[in-house]
């Protein structure tokens, strides 16, 4: 028997705390507790009643250690998605929903916490997960370099114009400049700085790359039925898919030639839209995990919003901004301009944009797509909706 999880669970509470690197008021776990309690207060649920936790990306905060602060009565579900990058971010929703729909937990918090002083730099942590002698022997030690080499193929061989990256980054900064919580609040992208910024790893310059922040995020998931009795508009999980396919993965850059420049989402695209019964045209707003500009572009292509051929037509600044664009992307500023706590802000905004809480509202938005960490060996995405 196949049981679809579509529409049966909902996000009922949102908590997100972000700080400039090195300025968090507490050690990492303290910031996480604060974000979880924020999410519970947002929903109107006693934090002691949270009985499940899910994270991703090698988070160091084992849920059992959160119990004293939260007053947890029962810990019924404590798990994490494999993978060192942001590839597991959206998969967390599927794990949480699976627990709830099979009666193994009732109220599950999806979280990620990162404070430099405690878990080190994110880029270093990601690479600690992936590094091997094949890579360090050729100077490849950072996500930026691995993604740069794939971006080079996307531009030079597949003919995607580099200019679309500027359009995407500009849209993120436009939204971030209008978000008081964003690192880029009040500052739109300086195009000259973008075009002439120092090289990091060609073809990436400084502003093609995400910057890291300290912080923590928490999203409270319950059954759709239980969500109706809580404070906020339930945002239902319509679909989620995670994984990889033959020819993609942790293959020392031996991915199948046509998959190599992608962000890896072709493996799950049909399952993702199929479970929701939707197509790319039905998505009102996209929250796009962009660790690097080109991987954001590749992810939008993978998710079917555009193709190698029409990418320059679709990824235009005017088309990517709320409220007027046809494909509003990263309405809070995304990783690049809102802030980067291992991508969690994209998950947070995927919920807020459907609750009418976005700093850049898309009027009447009913569906949002969370495109998870691109280019990871295993990837995931999710679609959310409101009635």
């Amino acid at each position: 028997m196949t049981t679809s999880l579509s529409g049966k669970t909902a996000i009922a509470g949102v908590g997100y705390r972000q700080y400039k690197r090195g300025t968090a008021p507490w050690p990492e776990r303290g910031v996480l507790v604060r974000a979880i309690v924020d999410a519970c207060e947002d929903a109107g649920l006693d934090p002691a009643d949270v009985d499940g936790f899910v994270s991703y990306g090698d988070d160091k905060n084992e849920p059992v250690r959160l119990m004293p602060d939260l007053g947890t009565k029962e810990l019924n579900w404590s798990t994490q998605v494999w993978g060192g990058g942001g590839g597991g971010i959206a998969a967390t929703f599927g794990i949480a929903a699976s627990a709830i729909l099979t009666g193994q937990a009732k109220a599950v918090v999806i979280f990620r916490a990162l404070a430099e002083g405690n878990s080190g730099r994110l880029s270093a942590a990601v690479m600690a997960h992936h590094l091997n002698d094949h890579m360090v022997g050729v100077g490849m030690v950072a996500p930026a370099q691995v993604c740069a080499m794939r971006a080079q193929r996307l531009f030079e061989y597949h003919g995607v114009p580099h200019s679309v990256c500027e359009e995407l980054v500009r849209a993120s900064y436009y939204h971030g400049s209008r978000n008081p919580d964003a690192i880029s609040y009040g500052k739109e992208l300086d195009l000259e700085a973008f075009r002439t910024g120092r090289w990091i790893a060609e073809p990436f310059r400084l502003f093609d790359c995400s910057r890291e922040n300290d912080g923590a995020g928490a999203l409270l998931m319950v059954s759709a039925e239980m969500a109706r009795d809580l404070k906020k508009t339930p945002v239902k999980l319509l679909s989620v898919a995670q994984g990889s396919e033959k020819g993609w993965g942790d293959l020392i850059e031996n991915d199948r030639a046509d998959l190599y420049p992608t962000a890896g989402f072709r493996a799950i695209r049909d399952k993702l839209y199929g479970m929701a019964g939707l197509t790319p045209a039905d998505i009102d707003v996209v929250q796009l995990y962009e660790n690097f500009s080109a991987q954001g572009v590749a992810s939008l292509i993978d998710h079917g919003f555009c193709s190698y051929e029409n990418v320059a037509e679709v990824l235009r600044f005017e088309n990517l901004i709320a409220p007027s664009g046809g494909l509003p992307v990263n309405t809070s500023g995304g990783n690049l301009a809102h802030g980067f706590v291992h991508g969690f802000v994209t998950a947070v905004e995927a919920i807020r944009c459907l609750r009418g809480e976005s700093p850049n509202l898309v009027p009447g938005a009913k569906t949002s797509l969370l495109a998870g960490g691109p280019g990871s060996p295993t990837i995931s995405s999710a679609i959310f909706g409101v009635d």
Partner: protein
Amino acid sequence: MVQMVTGQLGAEGPYWDGLAEGRLVLQQCKRCGKWNWPAVWRCGDCGSWEHHWVEQPLTGTIFSWTRTHHRFGGTEGLELPFTTVLVTLETVPVRLQGLVEGAEEGIRIGAKVLGRIASTPFGDANIPSIRWSLA
């Protein structure tokens, strides 16, 4: 047995032993002939556990490349900027990475390259790796 400086050793021990001896050897399935890279213990296509390790010439074409300008931790043994290429070997359907040495003018996807085996300083270790030059 060869020890890794970073990460886990997979099934590619003979590859590292080969580099240490100045030879490039790659793995081919004895039963179905597939060139498995990353190396495997069991061929995922035919199920065989038997493999050859076959020496290959260091010739190929650039599949992609990046030139690193930022001083990432762990690259202290290399002079900036340095260029890393991903090369499709001419003789077998395998891609190997390497650092570029010599003139870089005209570097592009599809350019032909020739390699030699060298090593890269990483902390206190020297990691065997390939240097490619534009042919």
